[in-house]
Each structure stands twice: as structure tokens, then as C-alpha cells.
């Protein structure tokens, strides 16, 4: 019996880890479809960001209630996973609660803490479900929150509640079995919560109890391994990527836009043409300006897209979204991820991507959305996991304006004024200091 369980467990474990690694490698490959961007500087400051933003969830605390609940779920989930280590080792070696003899009384304190955290996780997830489905908090109801993103969020919350309930059931039945001195059930002594619940099973048959305990144990660990494999298909992948994404977060002032050295170079050549015999060093003609599709963006933009947890804090703060425009920074991130997955699928099938007549710009994100952005940086400021939707918006605008000549007519007029009058309005440069006349 134990041997069969052990073999089954080893098989299950190997398959789960294999599938997870395969998907993660595909995601890694997709992220590196993006252009290179060298982010190696200021290591100290970057680690600080990992501590503050990822571990400490500093940005979440801009809004207290969800922050505290989220902290329960996050801390609970991460810490309880220490318990998973024991479960996996038990599963692989056929032991039961192998850490108990090693840790002595400390083991009970540890599991007791986990049980309290489990209750907090259940509470947090329940409130989150209520906020999403009953209170219908506005940021979870916008246009891009179609069926899948909404269900995805609900599935995760429900899964976490079930996993925690299984964990508690496992401990409670285990306690009752210990009280009955059943062999194989190591005498660990009571845990804080399950000891209180154990009397519920006082009347149950020992056989039923063992069935329940084993059932909960198996469902719990299978659930955890399933959850692991669900992550990379879900917005929940942020629990992994939030860490590197905080490390690679932009440290410059938010107002600073990336320079385009290729254009800087061309403009210099315009003003200071090189001597005519100097043609040998001419750089190759530049490719596309800005970005039209996922591979034109840089890898940090793409990692941003996989990190996005679709929380909508960005969109809730966006002045364009707030006033009913089509633009939603969250949708920019979701579209980028969807497009990346679409390209990734083709690479999985054909080994390479040769174009499919579609692009992120136009097929996913429309010009009307992009024109509405005021570059106010509210989305960047709000994002709890250091995502920069504005950077993508600006790169897409560059392609629309410089490659596709699709700027709105009013902007073309403004460009014309700057070119001819050195001011965005139609005024003569000679009138620049007219204001002084009546000082």
C-alpha cells in the first residue's frame, strides 16, 4: 500500500515539475524575443527595491484594506509552503511528518502558526471574492476584464481557499488519529487550530478517518502541484515575476524618456555632414522606429507584461480611463501578453515565428487608445509590481508617427509649427520676447 502511494507520488511529482519547467522556459524564451536592454547598474538600490516593493509590498499600502488582506494571503501562502517541503519529502520517502522528531516542540509552534495563517488566507480570499463578485469594485469590471480574466481571478481565490481547507482537514483528522494511537501517525501533540476542531471527528470510524486524512493529504498536494502549473497561464504568475521585475524597475526619474541614439545620430549628420570620403563608416539603415509588435519592445517591457496581475490600479488612476476614453494601461499590458503568447504558440508549433500578418499595434491596441495618453505617469506610479505601461505606449506612438505617418491632423499642424516657427503655435519667432514690452 505505502509503496504504491510512494510510486504514484514520485510519478506525479516528476510530471508536475517537468510541465512547469517547460512552460517557464517558453515564457523565458518569449520574454527574450524582446530587444536587449542593459540593466546592470545600481545593484544596491535594486536589491532595496526587491525588499521594499516585492517582499514588503510597499506600493500595495497606498490602499490599506486590500493591502492587509493581500498581505495575509501572500505571507500565508509563501510561509505555508514550507509545509509543502515536508509533504513532498514524506511523499518521496514514504514517511509521515518527518520534521516532527527533528524539530520537537518547535514543530507544533510552526504548524500552529501555519494554521492561523491558513485561517487568515481563507478570510482574505473570501473578502476578495466578495469585492470582485458582490461589491463589484469598479476596477475589476472594466472593458478588458472579459470572461477569462474575471474567471482566472476567481479560480485562484477558490483554489487557495480549497487548499487551505484541505490543509486544515488533514491536520484535524491526523490529530484525532493520533489520539487513537493509530500506527504510522507520528505522535506530534496538538496543533493550535486543528486541536480545537478534532472533536468534530470524535464519532467517526477510524477507517473513515484514515480515508479522510489520506484523501486530504493527496488532494492538497495534488492541488498544490496543479496550482504550480496553473500559475504560468494565469495573472497569478506575478507571485514569481514580481521579484525580478522589482529588481529591474526603472530607477531614473519617471519623466525621463528613453533616447533614440539612431535618430540622434541622423540628426547630427544632417547638421554636421561628414566629409564625403567618409562613407565607409556609414551605419546600416535603421530598422523600424519605435515598436509595432512584441519583438520591437525590449525584454523589460515583455517581462512587465507577464508580471501584470491585472489588478487595474493603473487604470483606476489613469485620467483618460477615468473620463471614459478607450485607453486603459492595464489593457496595454494584457494585450502585450496575449500577443506574446500568440507568437509563442507559433514558435512552439513551427520552431520559429515568421509573421502572421498581425501586430500588437493596430490588431490589439488601436491608435485611438494610444492618442489619449497624457503621459502623466499615474499608471507607473500606482503599479505595485513596477510595471511601466507608458513606455510601451510611447514606443507604439513612435512607430505610428514616424513609420506609418498616422499622427492626428492637429499634431501634424503642431509639428509643422515647431519646424517652421520653432514653437508649437503659429507665432513668429520674432515675437518671442514681446511680453517684455509692457514690463
Amino acid at each position, binding site marked *: 500500500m505505502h509503496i504504491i502511494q510512494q510510486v504514484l507520488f514520485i510519478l506525479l511529482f516528476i510530471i508536475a515539475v517537468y510541465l512547469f519547467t517547460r512552460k517557464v522556459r517558453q515564457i523565458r524564451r518569449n520574454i527574450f524575443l524582446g530587444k536587449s536592454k542593459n540593466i546592470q547598474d545600481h545593484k544596491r538600490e535594486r536589491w532595496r527595491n526587491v525588499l521594499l516593493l516585492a517582499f514588503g509590498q510597499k506600493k500595495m499600502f497606498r490602499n490599506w484594506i486590500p493591502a492587509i488582506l493581500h498581505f495575509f494571503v501572500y505571507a500565508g501562502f509563501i510561509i505555508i509552503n514550507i509545509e509543502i517541503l515536508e509533504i513532498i519529502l514524506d511523499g518521496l520517502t514514504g514517511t509521515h511528518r518527518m520534521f516532527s522528531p527533528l524539530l520537537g516542540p518547535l514543530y507544533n509552534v510552526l504548524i500552529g502558526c501555519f494554521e492561523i495563517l491558513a485561517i487568515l488566507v481563507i478570510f482574505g480570499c473570501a473578502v476578495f471574492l466578495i469585492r470582485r463578485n458582490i461589491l463589484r469594485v469598479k476596477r475589476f469590471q472594466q472593458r478588458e476584464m472579459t470572461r477569462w480574466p474575471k474567471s482566472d481571478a476567481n479560480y485562484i481565490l477558490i483554489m487557495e481557499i480549497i487548499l487551505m481547507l484541505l490543509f486544515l482537514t488533514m491536520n484535524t483528522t491526523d490529530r484525532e488519529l493520533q489520539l487513537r494511537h493509530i500506527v504510522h501517525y507520528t505522535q506530534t501533540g496538538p496543533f493550535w487550530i486543528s486541536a480545537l476542531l478534532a472533536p468534530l471527528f470524535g464519532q467517526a470510524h477510524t477507517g473513515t478517518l484514515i480515508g479522510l486524512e489520506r484523501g486530504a493529504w493527496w488532494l492538497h498536494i495534488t492541488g498544490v502541484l496543479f496550482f504550480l502549473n496553473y500559475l504560468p497561464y494565469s495573472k497569478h504568475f506575478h507571485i514569481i515575476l514580481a521579484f525580478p521585475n522589482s529588481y529591474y524597475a526603472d530607477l*531614473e*526619474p*519617471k*519623466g*525621463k*524618456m528613453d*533616447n*533614440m541614439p539612431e*535618430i*540622434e545620430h*541622423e*540628426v547630427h549628420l*544632417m*547638421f554636421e555632414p561628414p566629409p564625403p570620403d567618409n562613407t565607409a563608416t556609414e551605419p546600416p539603415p535603421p530598422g523600424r522606429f*519605435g515598436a509595432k509588435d512584441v519583438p520591437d519592445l525590449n525584454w523589460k517591457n515583455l517581462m512587465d507584461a507577464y508580471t501584470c496581475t491585472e489588478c487595474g490600479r493603473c487604470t483606476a488612476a489613469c*485620467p*483618460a480611463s*477615468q*473620463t*471614459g*476614453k*478607450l*485607453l486603459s494601461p492595464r489593457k496595454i499590458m494584457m494585450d502585450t501578453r496575449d500577443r506574446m503568447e500568440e507568437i509563442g504558440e507559433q514558435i512552439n508549433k513551427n520552431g520559429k515565428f515568421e509573421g502572421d500578418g498581425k501586430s500588437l499595434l493596430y490588431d490589439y491596441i488601436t491608435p*485611438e487608445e494610444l492618442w489619449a495618453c*497624457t*503621459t*502623466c*505617469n*499615474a499608471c*507607473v*506610479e500606482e503599479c505595485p509590481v513596477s510595471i511601466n505601461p507608458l513606455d510601451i505606449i*510611447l514606443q507604439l506612438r*513612435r*512607430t*505610428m508617427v*514616424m513609420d506609418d505617418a498616422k*499622427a*492626428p491632423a*492637429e*499634431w501634424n*499642424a*503642431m*509639428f509643422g509649427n*515647431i*519646424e517652421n516657427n*520653432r*514653437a*508649437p*503655435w503659429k*507665432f513668429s*519667432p*520674432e*515675437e*518671442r*520676447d*514681446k*511680453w*517684455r514690452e*509692457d*514690463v
Partner: protein
Amino acid sequence: MAAAGESPEVLFWVGCAGSFDQRAQKITKAFALILEKVGIRFAILGNEESCNGDPARRAGNEFLFQMMAYGNIQTLNNYGIKKIVTTCPHCFNIFKNEYPVLGGHYEVIHHTQLLQQLIDEGRIKMKEGNAFKGKRITYHDSCYLGRANNIYEAPRKVLQALDTELVEMKHCRSRGMCCGAGGAQMWKEEEKGHIRINAARVKEAEATGASLIVSNCPYCMTMLSDGVKANGREEDLQVLDIAELVAQSME
């Protein structure tokens, strides 16, 4: 300035709005007046000043931006400019953050920062019973001074020195709501929505019960003034730049 052959302490970069827009010209004049009163030797580039390229760059026209930047950096470097003060957060941001990689290195400050310094140093003193004393006002954080460059306190300290009663809007400091002009929006109609951004922002200001909105940016000035008109509050809700408050109140 070139002709005069003297070296100014600071270059006052007036900016396109400050030069041409009638309302913004008043801010320019107010700030120039303050500089003169305090006795700071400043210069302007006059018709040698050109658009810094911000609207072009943010609209996606990098070529035009690079052309303007090239010209301006040549001019500024030719005159040996070391320090720039500007009344426009967009100019401030571009000079401070985006010109250095292109070869334009200057010490750049926004006029609200300079005003705070001058007040701290005692070089600006307010009149006894200045017009804004005790007045209920609200302050609008511009995106390019606030989030873009994390300057929230300097302007508020100036307002403190004026003894105003500052009531913050629902969204302020790093949460401040945009006026709707940045990112080259100033030069085009808004996309379809249910309300204009400036009208929405002015509503937030109205909710504070203030009779004066203080701004620090010529574009915010335009947008907020239009919003006040659109909301029918012209009679009892004023919009003034922080420099105008100081110019009216100093000794």
C-alpha cells in the same frame, strides 16, 4: 545678452507658452518681476529660444525633437549657460532629464523651487496682510513636477509662507490627477469619453470649497481655466500660478 557681454547668474527659459500664450505671459511677467525685485541678474534668449521639443517627442516625433534639442543645446552651450530656471515643468523635465545624454548639461531648477529658496533665505518677504492670507486655496500638482520629478514640497512651502489655508484635493501629490494637457494633448481634441479631463479635475478642486486653484505650469493653467469656465465657476473660482501669488504679495 550676447551683446551686453556680461554673464548672468541664471538663464530664465521662458518657454513657448510663457512667450506666446496671453495668459501664460502674465506668469512670465510676474516671475521676471520677482527676479528683478530680488536683484537676481538673469538673461533670456529672446528669439534665439526655440521649442525644447517636448510635445514632438511625446507625440512620437523623435526626429523633430532631436532637431530642436540639437539647436537649443548649441545655443545654450555657445553662451556658456550653467544654470537654467523655468516656469514650465515640461521645459524643466526635458533640460534636467533628457538633454544631458545629448550633450546639454545644466543645473536646472523650476521656479517654485527658486521661490522656496528665496523665501528660505529671507530674500523674499511677504507684505503684512498679503491678499492671500487665510484664503482657502487648493494646489494642483502638475505631472511633470510631481510624479515625473518628485517635487511636491517646494511649492507647498511657498504657499505656507503666504499663510494661505491650503485644502488638498482628493487626488494630490503622487496621486495628483493630470489636467489633461501633457503628452501633446494640448494640441488636439480629446478622444471620445464622458467628460473632459480638465472638467473632472476642476470638479475635484470645487469639492475643496476653495476659491483659488494654484498651479505651477502654463499648460495646467490653460486647462484648469478652461475647466473652470466649462463648469460655470468663472465668477468665484480663480486660477493663478504660484509666481503670481508671490509677485502680488511680496514687499
